[in-house]
C-alpha cells in the first residue's frame, strides 16, 4: 500500500494538481473568512468565536464539494486510460491495497489543505480572549470526515470510467444530490424527511460546526467512506474477472 501512496503523492505534486487545489482552497476560504469576519464585526453583538467559525466551516464545506472531485478524478480513470492498471495487477498488490493507497494519498492532500487554514484562527488570536478550541477541533474533524467521504465517492466513480472529466462531473453531481436531498422538506412527509435527513451527507456537519461531536455523525461519515471504498474494490475485482481494464 505504501508504494501506491507514495506514487500517488508524487503524481499529485509533480503534476501541480495538489499545489493548485491547496492554493485555491486557501485563497477562497481566506476570502470567506474576510467576509464572515466583516459581517460579524459590522453587525456586532454576536458570539464571535462560536458564530464566526460556524459560518466559516459551512462555507469551506461548500468549496470542498467543488474542489475534491478534482483530486479523485484521475486516480483510476487515468490508470485505465494509460493501461497501467494492468501492470499494477501483475505486482503482488491486492486490490484493497491499491484502493486504500490511492485513498490515503488523497486524504493526505486533504489534510494538508485543511492544515493550511489553521492559520486563520491563529491570525485572530490577538482579537480573541482565547482560542475556541472545542469549536475548532469539532469543526475540523467534521470537515475532514466529510472530505474523506467525498474522496471515497470520487474514487469509486473514477474506477468506473476512463475519462477524468466524466469522473469529476459525475462525482460532483452525486455529492450535490446528497446535499440537496433534504431541500424538499415542504413536499415530503415527516417520516420521509427524517429518512432523507439521515442520509444527507451535508446536514451531518451541523453538530460539528457548533462544536459538538456526535458519534452517530462520525459513524455515518466513516461508514459512507467505507461503503464506497469496498464498492470500489468489488468493482475492480469484477472488471478483472471479466477481463476489462
Amino acid at each position, binding site marked *: 500500500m*505504501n*508504494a*501506491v501512496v*507514495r*506514487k500517488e503523492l*508524487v*503524481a499529485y505534486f*509533480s*503534476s501541480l494538481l495538489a499545489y493548485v487545489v491547496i492554493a485555491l482552497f486557501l485563497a477562497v476560504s481566506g476570502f470567506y473568512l474576510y467576509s464572515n469576519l466583516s459581517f460579524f464585526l459590522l453587525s456586532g453583538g454576536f458570539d464571535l468565536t462560536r458564530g464566526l467559525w460556524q459560518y466559516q466551516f459551512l462555507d469551506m464545506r461548500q468549496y470542498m464539494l467543488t474542489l475534491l472531485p478534482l483530486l479523485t478524478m484521475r486516480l483510476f480513470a487515468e490508470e485505465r486510460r*494509460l*493501461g*497501467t492498471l*494492468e*501492470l*499494477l*495487477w*501483475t*505486482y*503482488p*498488490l*491486492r486490490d484493497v491495497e491499491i484502493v486504500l493507497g490511492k485513498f490515503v494519498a488523497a486524504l493526505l492532500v486533504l489534510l494538508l489543505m485543511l492544515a493550511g487554514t489553521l492559520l486563520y484562527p491563529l491570525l485572530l488570536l490577538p482579537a480573541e480572549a482565547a482560542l475556541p478550541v472545542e469549536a475548532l477541533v469539532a469543526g475540523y474533524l467534521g470537515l475532514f470526515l466529510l472530505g474523506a467521504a467525498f474522496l471515497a465517492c470520487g474514487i469509486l466513480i473514477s474506477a468506473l470510467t476512463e475519462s477524468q472529466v466524466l469522473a469529476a462531473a459525475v462525482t460532483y453531481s452525486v455529492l450535490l444530490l446528497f446535499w440537496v436531498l433534504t431541500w424538499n422538506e415542504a413536499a415530503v412527509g415527516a417520516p420521509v424527511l427524517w429518512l432523507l435527513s439521515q442520509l444527507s451527507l451535508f446536514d451531518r456537519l451541523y453538530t460539528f460546526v457548533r462544536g459538538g461531536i456526535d458519534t452517530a455523525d462520525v459513524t455515518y461519515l466513516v461508514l459512507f467512506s467505507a461503503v464506497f471504498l469496498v464498492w470500489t474494490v468489488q468493482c475492480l475485482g469484477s472488471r*478483472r*474477472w*471479466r*477481463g476489462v481494464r
Partner: protein
Amino acid sequence: MIEVCNLTKRFGDFIAVDDVSFSVGSGECVGFLGPNGAGKTTTMRVIAGIFPPTTGVVRVGGHDVRREPGAARRVLGYFPENAPFYPEMSVQGYLAFVARAKRVARADRATHIEKALAECGLREVRHRLVGKLSKGYRQRVGLSQALLGDPEVLVLDEPTSGLDPGQVSEIRELVKSLRGQRTIVFSSHILSEVSQVAQRVVIVDRGRLVAEDSLEGLSGRLAGAVPLWVRADVAPEALRAVLVGVAGVERAEVSDGRVRLVVRDEGVVEAVSRAVAEQDWLILELRREALSLEDIFLRLVREPAQRSARAAEGTP
C-alpha cells in the same frame, strides 16, 4: 516454471483461449507465436495474473495463479503490449515505485534498481520523465520494470511491436541477453524474430494450440513448405518442363517470369541446380522464399485439415 493446463478463457460468449496446454521449463526461452487475435495476449495475461482462467489451471513457479496469486506474481515479471507508462514519473522514480510494489526489501532496493537500469541501458536517462522519452526507451523502461527484483519468470507481450528496425534489434538483443538464468516467454507475430531468440515455439491460432515444438523440429516439419524460385536464361516454360521432372519437386509453376517450385526438402536445391547445368543453361536467380507466419499457418493449420478432408473422401 510455467504450466498451462487446459486453459480456457471466455469473455461472455467469446472464447478467447480454448483448451490450451503447454509448459515451459526452467531457464527455457519460448516464443509464443500467432496472428493478431489468436489469444496470445489473453493467455499471457492469465499467466501474469491479470485475470483468472475461466477453466483450467495455470501455475507459475509451482504456484496456482488463482489460488496463490501473491506467490505467483512474486516470481514473475510481465511486460504488457505497448508498454504502458506513467508520463509524469522519472525513470528512476518509477523503478523505485515498482521495487516497493514488488516488495523488494528496502535494503536491496537501490541495488536492484541499479541492476535494472544497467541491464536495460537506462543509466543515462534515469532522471528524465518517462513521458519525454522516445518509444524505444519507453519500451526499455517497460522491460526494466519487468526485470526489476530478478523474477525467475519473464512474460513479455510483443516487446518489439511498434518500434523502428534499429530499436527492434536493440530490444531483441536485450531479450537475448536475458536468456539463461531466467525462464522467458515472449510473444510475437514475426517468425524470424522468434527463430533468433527462442529455443522452442508455441503457436496458437483462433484460441487453439496449433503446434508446440523446438525450432529444429518445426523447420523439419516445414521444410517442404519452403517454395523455391528459379530463373534461368531460357523461357520459364522450358525451365519448368525440365524442373518438374527433378526428383523431390512436388509442384512447379510459372509465375512472374520465374518458376516456383514446391519441394520436398532442402536437398532438392542441389538437384535443381544440377538439372539446369546439364541443360547448359545459366541460373540467374535461385532463392528460397522467406517463410512468413501465414505460410506456417497454411502448412500447420489448413493443410492438415485439407489432407484429413481428402482422406475422408477416400482420395490420396
